[in-house]
């Protein structure tokens, strides 16, 4: 789970889920606690699903929140 997907790709990560920034990957402090939780819960869920997904090349998984 990384914001800088190009870096993750360059170092060879295979399953990648984007996060929202460097200093706060999973919760923007300028938004409400509720929004932050929603985003974190969603993206961690995407990462968990990614772990169960068969891939044959470096893959960036889509997020909705």
């Amino acid at each position: 789970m990384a914001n800088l997907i190009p870096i993750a790709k360059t170092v060879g990560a295979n399953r990648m889920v984007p996060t929202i920034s460097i200093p706060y990957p999973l919760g923007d402090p300028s938004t409400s606690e509720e929004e932050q939780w929603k985003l974190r819960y969603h993206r961690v869920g995407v990462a968990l699903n990614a772990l169960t997904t068969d891939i044959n090349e470096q893959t960036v998984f889509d997020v909705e929140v």
Partner: protein
Amino acid sequence: MAKAIVYLNQFFGQIGGEEVADHEPEIRNEKVGAAMLYDQLLDGEVTHTIICGDNFMGSNEEQAVDRILGFLKDKEFDIFFAGPAFQAGRYGIACGAIGKAVKEEFDVSVISSMNEENPGVKMYKKDIYIFPGGKSAAKMRDDVTKMVEFGNKILSGEKLLPAEQEGFFKRGIRHQYFLEDETPAYERAIDMLLKKINGEDFVSELPIPEIDTVEIADPIKDLSKATIALVTSGGIVPIDNPDKIQSASATRWGKYYIADVDKLKNRREESFKTIHAGYDPKAADADPNRVVPVDAMRKYEQEGKIGSLYEYFYSTVGTGTSQDEAARMGKEITQELIENNIQAVIETST
């Protein structure tokens, strides 16, 4: 006087040709074959010759390397030469394999020589000094001379010049270098720009290396039975940083017990904070779950989506951290995770 040991194959070690390529490794307390030439040119003495058949090394590499390292254990030597291997592929790979092992085990300089077509060059140029050599033994004297001249330079403690000046294949090891003619970067930049504009040849000072790929792990079949660990390069640690992980150029990592928490408490609560110096710490200090999402993982654990969240999370700092150090720490952490039967990891980076 400096002491050197030379590695040769069955042919140059004067055992014989292809028919004895299965010759088992041996060490002799004398200069055999090409080792004589090394001895003549070296500012020092060749004390031993190691001889091993190319096929023996090729089919039993691990065993051959172990046995040779065993021979060397009680020997004193300052430098190690292997080859020259010319265009002989098996010999080149053997020189590389034994050279790499000797360098790692005894921390002495290892020098070899191979023709650029030799597959050993690509495989081992990062690990040992390999000089471009001739295609065949007709170039023996030239190739050995290049190797020994460089060896003499190392033994004398003289400052080594960049690879392009010393002549060995580039190893992917980059260091800063003050230009003798003191050409400032602004001149170099304009020169490169004008050449690029005019379609002339130019040389980038940072050639883009090939990108590493990593084997893709199989997917998890049943997440609801898996134990998953959190690992971060975001520098989240207990408030007193008990493992003294460095804020930049880290060489240390830590693991922190979280089995008893539903979410990570923050710096104000004197619990967790970040010591990563490469980003603004405010958001991570205020809520470390933004970097290490313990709270979200707990929720998925309660919901039964995952079997469990591992009782420790792992942390280090990923700013200015060298790739070698990062890889070492990654291996150490992986080792622990495997021993504890962890099936998957979510790694968060900042």
